[in-house]
């Protein structure tokens, strides 16, 4: 039987580098680096304290090298540049003052920042290396009471809210990468949806790593007050470099009573070449807290990029009747490795969670689902449904499922279903026999496999995600 072999990715079209003068600090990480970052950002004392506490804790921690199903060379944390910002005026009254080179970069990425050119329904915060360069529709959103701005501005303009929620979901000492991020994070997005407001447009952040030597450490905080609703999208790309770059982000979501947050990601960081040279090391801590009753947090992710993905968007279901959802498509090709999944922690009564994970492995890649469902004693009548499906393309890749289930009361129910399948020659032949090319057939099968997840994405993202999977899996029958 012949095997399905995959051709290389179609050219990664986001692999260009922007030539721009940057304010870069010396490489390496010490307490002085942390102070320098804080100083560059003119931060208040409490923020510096937060960072230093995290840094000191980080020094006592070790990188989680053993439990993830990932193999990569030791990361030299002293060989990374922790702050790299394009040189521009410190405050931007309008987009006219943003460096045209940056506007051009984002336009080339398909994210025009001039409002007249944008999709009408989406506001964008554009993050370039260590800083946010522009946020669109800020004024329009403000009229509805919605705050959407860079993290730097949020610390300056809304210190009480930031101080109240920062670290409340992911504490500084949560894990090695979260501690590192808490010490050195340079920017990110901040969203605040006040009580009773349904955010009138989709909010989004576009992350771009440009500098070959720097890491990106951004922080996102989204707070939805009582009865509020927001849908947030996140996209990311990076140029092609032979060297790996570290991306260690932290995302915190807080939903109060009856609030809903829908968080969607299409991750397309540079994945490295076919032999595994270069690519982003993506170590991300994402967690949402359903703090209030009847609140709901949904994570939808389509992970197609990065050399290494280590990511477990989670929900803490604290409020009674709260709902957590995780819908994931993780695709690995060539030498990519992904260890991704979720944690659903049931604390409140009648809390419900749904996990739908679709892992697709091709080439020599390795794709693991790792998920924890934990039902605490007081979470009476909690329910979880988990479905984990893996699909293998070819015979040199691997897929694993690592479910952890802990139930501490008798009234709850947890369901776990898992399957592993292979795109078979028979399936391909069947579709080809109907006149569909081998490449289109693979794409059709994969998109069918991922349908339950794509249905959760906002329309534009679903189209983008389907297209992206097709590109990543340009296949042929060998």
């Amino acid at each position, binding site marked *: 039987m*012949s095997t399905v072999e995959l051709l290389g990715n179609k050219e990664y079209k986001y692999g260009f580098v922007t030539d721009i003068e940057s304010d870069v600090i010396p490489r390496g990480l010490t307490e002085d680096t942390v102070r320098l970052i804080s100083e560059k950002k003119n931060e208040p004392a409490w923020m510096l304290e937060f960072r230093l506490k995290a840094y000191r804790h980080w020094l006592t921690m070790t990188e989680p090298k053993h439990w993830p199903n990932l193999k990569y060379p030791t990361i030299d944390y002293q060989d990374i540049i922790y702050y790299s910002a394009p040189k521009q005026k410190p405050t931007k009254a309008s987009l006219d003052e943003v460096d045209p080179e940056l506007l051009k970069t984002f336009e080339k990425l398909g994210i025009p920042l001039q409002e007249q050119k944008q999709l009408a329904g989406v506001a964008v915060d554009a993050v370039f290396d260590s800083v946010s360069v522009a946020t669109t529709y800020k004024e329009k959103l403000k009229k509805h009471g919605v705050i959407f701005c860079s993290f730097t501005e949020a610390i300056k303009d809304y210190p009480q809210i930031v101080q109240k929620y920062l670290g409340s979901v992911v504490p500084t000492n949560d894990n090695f990468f979260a501690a590192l991020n808490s010490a050195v994070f340079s920017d990110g997005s901040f969203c605040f949806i006040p009580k009773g407001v349904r955010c009138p447009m989709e909010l989004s952040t576009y992350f771009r790593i440009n500098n070959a030597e720097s890491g990106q450490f951004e922080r996102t905080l989204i707070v939805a007050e009582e009865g509020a609703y927001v849908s947030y999208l996140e996209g990311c790309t990076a140029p092609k470099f032979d060297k790996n770059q570290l991306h260690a982000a932290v995302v915190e979501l807080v939903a109060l009573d009856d609030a809903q947050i829908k968080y969607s990601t299409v991750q397309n960081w540079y994945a490295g070449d076919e032999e595994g040279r270069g690519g982003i090391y993506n170590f991300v801590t994402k967690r949402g807290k359903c703090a209030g009753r009847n609140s709901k947090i949904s994570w939808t992710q389509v992970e197609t990029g990065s050399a290494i993905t280590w990511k477990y968007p989670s929900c803490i279901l604290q409020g009674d009747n709260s709902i957590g959802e995780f819908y994931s498509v993780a695709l690995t090709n060539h030498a990519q490795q992904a260890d991704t999944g979720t944690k659903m922690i049931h604390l409140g009564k009648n809390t419900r969670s749904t996990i739908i994970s679709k892992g697709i492995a091709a080439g020599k890649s390795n794709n693991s689902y790792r998920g924890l469902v934990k039902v605490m004693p007081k979470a009476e009548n909690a329910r979880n449904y988990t479905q984990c499906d893996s699909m293998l393309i070819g015979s040199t890749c691997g897929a694993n499922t690592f479910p952890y289930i802990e139930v501490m009361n008798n009234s709850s129910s947890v369901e776990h279903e898992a399957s592993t399948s292979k795109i078979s020659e028979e399936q391909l032949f069947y*579709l080809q*026999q*109907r006149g*569909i090319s*081998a490449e289109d057939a693979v794409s059709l099968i994969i*998109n*069918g496999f991922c349908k339950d997840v794509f249905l959760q994405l906002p329309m534009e993202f679903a189209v983008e995600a389907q297209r992206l999977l097709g590109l990543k899996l340009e296949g042929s029958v060998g």
Partner: protein
Amino acid sequence: MLEVRNLHAAIDGNEILRGINLTVKKGEVHAIMGPNGSGKSTLAKVIAGHPDYEVTAGEVIFEGRNLLEMAPDERAREGVFMAFQYPIEVPGVSNAQFLRLAYNEKQKHLGLEELDPLEFKDLLKERAKVVEMEASFMTRSVNEGFSGGEKKRNEILQMAVLQPKLAVLDETDSGLDIDALRVVAGGVNQLQSPENAVIVVTHYQRLLNYIVPDFVHVLANGLIAREGGKELALELEEKGYDWIKAEMQSNGTGAPAN
């Protein structure tokens, strides 16, 4: 339309077809019969281009072109259709989506107009009548959770949508009850025209009561052992296949004894 000349084919190094000759003209219906393991399904799959089979000698000419040089999808777009003995499930892909993609690929190939989902829906509704299929089938995933009979009807629906020049039905009657058999055969008959041809691969004569062949070819041990008109099928029904096998053994064309 189709010329098969001295066709030899093997799977995993075992030769299954050992020199098949077959000529099919427009408007004809041919039946390929034979006992299990005689190579009749292999012949169907080789014509369609199944990747498991290696053609070791001979040629297959379709409409003046060498079919063996074409990829399976190319053959399909040129008008070769095979109804599968075991239709394959494609989870998450709706029947309508799949059929429209296949239909448009063919239209594109022929330089004809492609249809958008709404236009295609109308076409599908019309063609579905051929196999008495309900609209609900169109939104269900391809063959997923279909009964044996539904799967076979779905094959004929695909044939109705794609309107091939040459349709090869690989044991379409297997696993069908008499009502389903009637519907499926009725569908095939409706699609028959002086411009196209049908090859019916079957073990039993039963299907040939409904789809009446112009020619019957009996395969044994990878060779055509007998040829004749529709009456040959009736003779086989009566006598079974053993006498053909015995005949081949005695004249030295049988497989070597294992």
